[in-house]
Every structure is written in C-alpha cells, then in structure tokens.
C-alpha cells in the first residue's frame, strides 16, 4: 500500500526526530527537579533557564517573560481569565473576534457568566477584522483585546501590529493566540506590540502537552493553578523538563529553517490552489487570497458535503479536514466559516489542506490527481448539483 499523504498539519504535527533525540536523556539520566537543592536539581534549573532563553529569543522576548503551561488552551485560559479577574476593578469589557479558536469563544462565555461583557468583532468575507471597527468598539471599560495572529482554519492573517498599537495607545492589554502562525510567520512581540502571546510546542514540531504564555514585564495576572509557586507563581507544578527541552529544540530548529520551509510550503499551497480552482468547477477559495498562512489551502465545493469528501479522501490515502457540521462533535458548522458570511449549506462543502515540514511536492500531485474524480462522483449523487446543471 502506498504511504498515506498527511495534509492536516493544523490539527497535529509529528515531533521532529531531532527534537525527540534531544528529549531522550531527560527521561532517565537527567531527570532532576529544578526546585531541588542538589546536583540533579541544579542541573535541571540550568537546563530549564537555557530553554527559557531560547524560546524567548524565538519571539524577541526576555527569558522571565516566558511561562510554561500544559498547552495553548491553558495559555489562552491563563491570559484571559488570569488578566480579567486581576483587573476587574479597572473595567469589565473584553474584545475578541468572531474568528477566534473555539477555546477563546468558550473562555469568553465563561467570563460573561462572571459579569464581563465580551464584544465579538465581525470580520470581512476573507476573515479579516477591521482596525477601524475595533477602535469604535473600545469603551472606557475595555481592559483586554484578544485577537488571534491568524486563523487556524482559513489561514487569514490579521493586522496584528496595528491592533497592538491601538491597544497600547489606550492602555489596554493585548493578547494574541499565536498558535496558527507559529513557525509560518516570524513572531516578534516588540514589533507587534503584544502583551500576552499564546504558543504551542507541537505547532513547531515539539511534543504535545506543552505550551507557553508570553507575559510582558509589568503585566499582572492571577494564576489559575495554585501550588508550589513555579513559573513566578503564575503556573505551579513541577516543570516538564523533557517537554521543555523538546519545545526549546523545536524553536531553535524553526528559527534556523523557517525561512526556507515557508518558501517551500507556500509553493505547494499556490500550486494546489491554482490547480484545484482550475480543474474543479463551482469551487471557491475560503480565506484571504494573499494575506494567508503559507501552508493553508481552504476550499469550498458547491453541492457536496465535507465529511463525504474526507471519507473518500481517506479511501484514496489523503488526510485532510473540513468545517462541515457533519464531522463536528456538536454538529454545528465551523463558526469561522459562518462569520465570513457563508450559509450553513455552503460551510457544508468545505475542505482544508494544511502542509507541513514532512510534505513533498509529490503530495500536492497526489491531491490534484485524486480530488477531481471524488468531487465528480459525489456531485453525481447530489440532487443540488443536478438542479444547478439543469438550470
């Protein structure tokens, strides 16, 4: 059997073998707890602080601004709940956008129950927020703005530095979920004027179960996990040294290889988008035509449904994703697609490909070879397509 072609890098990435190698000694030989006052403990502290510096360099921050967490979801929780609960005397208004990751939408709901008012900025048909609209939503009560760097679904990149300046000039904290952009855009918390930035280890080919919250010096947060006071008291619990070594190694490799890698992925993306739109009629590109992540190609096929597409692609040896309601746990279509102005039935026919480090050009060829007949077969089954054709 031919190898499966994996094109769902936004949902999970394999650990880079070099990262795995670097982690191995920390499971057995170098197992120390940084809080211990003996040789093993001292060595662990040294390793931990070295990794903190490496990751800080990756986003142009200082080492003591890096807080290790269990992953991006925890980082988002710490940023929003930790900041809002600490500053509720100052104001009760928070601004997010309609296209945030589901974790942020649910954190916002949680904060609303706690008395906060959350505004959701609408986006245009490509999924971009408007800075002008953001400004018009700010009130004297606004304490926090949280806008993701880019959409993990449709790949649209937000005008992050502009948002950062708007927030800074008004003394409002600015959080950004950087997970989708990590490893695809050089992140720089100074250039982009970010106060709180969520990062995930796996999204740069590090191990799962580890993340970072960048907390700008002077930002005060309440911790969500209370214990022995690790991570400046913001995130207690003995540090996951092996994981941290993994993420740090992954950041180091990414820092060296990102430029080349992004060029290569953007080439695959552009070939795929061009070919699919040319070869398959009644097909649309979701997301921004230019300001989109280098690895993201997101389509919408009229008159067919995304889960059927995924099942057929699985049979053909290709792994992809969809925003169709049929494949989600809640049977709701992707909120991101809906907020770009699509009807439910249109979101139904969406298909997302995300490329990554271990893809080759042959993988693009494979999709271009197998997808058109799949779409054709499903359209033959569809009453909608027949109607359109006869019309």
């Amino acid at each position: 059997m031919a190898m499966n072609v994996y094109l769902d890098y936004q949902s999970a990435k394999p650990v880079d073998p070099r990262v795995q190698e670097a982690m191995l000694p920390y499971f057995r030989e170098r197992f120390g707890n940084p809080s211990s006052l003996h040789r093993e403990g001292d060595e662990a502290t040294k390793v931990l602080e070295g990794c903190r510096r490496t990751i800080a360099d990756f986003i142009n921050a200082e080492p003591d601004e890096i807080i290790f967490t269990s992953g991006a979801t925890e980082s988002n929780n710490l940023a929003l709940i930790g900041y809002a609960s600490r500053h509720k005397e100052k104001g009760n208004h928070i601004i997010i956008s309609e296209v945030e990751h589901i974790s942020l939408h649910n954190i916002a709901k949680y904060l609303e129950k706690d008395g906060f008012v959350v505004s959701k900025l609408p986006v245009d048909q490509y999924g971009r927020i408007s800075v002008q609209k953001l400004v018009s939503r700010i009130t004297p009560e606004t304490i926090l703005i949280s806008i993701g760097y880019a959409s993990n679904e449709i790949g649209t990149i937000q005008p992050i530095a502009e948002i950062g300046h708007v927030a800074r000039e008004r003394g409002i904290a600015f959080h950004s979920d950087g997970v989708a952009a990590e490893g695809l855009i050089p992140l720089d918390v100074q250039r982009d004027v970010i106060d709180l930035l969520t990062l995930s280890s796996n999204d740069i080919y590090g191990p799962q179960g580890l993340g970072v919250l960048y907390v700008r010096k002077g930002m005060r947060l309440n911790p969500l996990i209370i214990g022995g006071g690790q991570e400046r008291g913001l995130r207690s619990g003995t540090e996951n040294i092996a994981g941290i070594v993994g993420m740090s190694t992954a950041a180091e490799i990414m820092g060296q290889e990102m430029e080349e890698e992004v060029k290569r992925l953007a080439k695959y993306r552009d070939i795929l988008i061009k070919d699919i739109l040319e070869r398959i009629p009644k097909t649309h590109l979701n997301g921004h035509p230019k300001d989109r992540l280098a690895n993201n190609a997101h389509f919408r096929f009229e008159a067919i449904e995304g889960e059927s597409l995924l099942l057929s692609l699985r049979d053909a040896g290709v792994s992809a994703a969809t925003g169709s309601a049929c494949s989600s746990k809640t049977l709701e279509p992707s909120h991101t697609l809906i907020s770009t102005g699509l009807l439910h039935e249109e979101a139904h026919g969406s298909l997302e490909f995300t490329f990554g480090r271990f893809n080759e050009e042959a993988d693009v060829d494979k999709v271009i070879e197998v997808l058109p007949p799949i779409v054709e077969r499903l359209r033959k089954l569809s009453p909608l397509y027949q109607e359109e054709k006869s019309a």
Partner: protein
Amino acid sequence: MKSTQYSEKVLDHFRNPRNVGTLEGDNVVWGEVGNPVCGDLMKIYLKVEDDKIADIKFQTFGCGSAIATSSMITEMAKGKTLDEALKITRQDVADELEGLPPVKMHCSNLAADALQEAIKNYRDQKKGKVPLPVIQKTTRPVKELVGEKEFLGKGVYHDVDDFAPFTDKRVMVVDRGPKSLEIALELTKHTGRVIVVTPGKAFSSVDAGLAKGIKQSDIKIIYESEPLEVRGSDEVEKVLVHDLDEDEEYELFVDAIIILK
C-alpha cells in the same frame, strides 16, 4: 464515539451506493426531505406498478451516513408493496447498516422519511389531489425590517446609484422585482459575494434573459426566505433570515443590504 466512526456496511454503501439517479415516466413520484440545520437533502424516486415498488432511485447531498442510509433504503424497499414499504423505520435502516454513530441517528437518517413522503405523494396523486404548482406566486406583504430605519445609510440602502461603495463587500439584495435583480447582477462586477433573498421558489417576475444571467452568475440565491431584522453595532453586520419552508431563523453575516422602495 466519533461522528464518523462507521460500520463496514455503512462504508460499503457510501463507496458503492446502490440505485443512484432519477426516474421519469408514468407512475413515477418522488419524495424529498431536508435537514434545515445543516442543509442535507435527500430525494427518493419511485416507480409504482400493481401497488408495488417496481423501481427506486435516490439522490443525496450530505455526509457518509446520509448517502449510506439512502442507498440502503432503496435496497430494502425495492419490490415491496407500498404498505410494506411504509413500515420501514429509521431504526430498521440503521439496523440493516449494522448501526450508525449515535449523533447521526437523527440528523443523517432521513431516508425512511423521504420514502414515506414519496409514497404519500403517490397516493395523493391517485386520489386526484393536485400537487402544488412548483412556482408559487408570492403575494407576501412588504414589511419593514427590524432595524431597517436605524441602519439606513449604515449598510441599509433603499436605492443604488453608485456601485463603488460595494466593492468587495458582502451584499444582500432583497427580491423586489426586476430592478432589484438587475442591481444584483450589476453588483457582481464589483464584488464576489452577492446574495439574493426571495420568498418564492422562483423569482417574483423576471424576463428570461435576466433569469439566465443570474443563474450563470456567482450570485447565491436563497429561495423561500425573507429577511426579518438587520443587526450590528454601528453598521450592518448581520441579517436575521427566516426560512419560510422550514420555518427556521438564522443569522447571515453581510456588509450591506439593498431593499428597494
């Protein structure tokens, strides 16, 4: 259980669906059911001879289990009398397929409903009941939308002389006769997203050339629906749409709405 964890039998019917297509001729009827939540649509065609299902075909727009249940029910119903076929339940279809993921039992298991609908249509026809004409003349009163006045000039337009402000915007045009449709067509030169909402199953009144132009364009037409309310913060952001057929309401994100007066 994941919503896509299907039995081998479901996968077999998805990969090799039986009895796909349409039927024509005497004693042919069809039944159609849709799922308003996600837009699934199933059509089952019957050819009836001596009160038996002599032939059966289907077309389905939907997920793997929607396709598999449609395919399965055509196998189960073929050759049965109409009374026997009416007894086939959703559970029977699921059982024949060696089970469906729990979340799919309701949303994508509509084939039994479509079959029952087709049989009902057949019996109605035999009794001499005339089916409703496909094109209904719509005489719905023209109501003002909630928020229409409030957002006038902030995304609500009662007339259009300049198309420039609509460049790259998502524009909804309410079908108010030929002039509104001409505007919709003209808008496609300025933006990729034009939506026409019309209360009927076809446009209110239109000449053939204009209708053809619209069908060939990228205009998204929402039939049997009417806008109820304009929503936003300080400009139009969404429109609350009422689906008259399914009696469902949903929000659609747009930047502008054109309601000719």
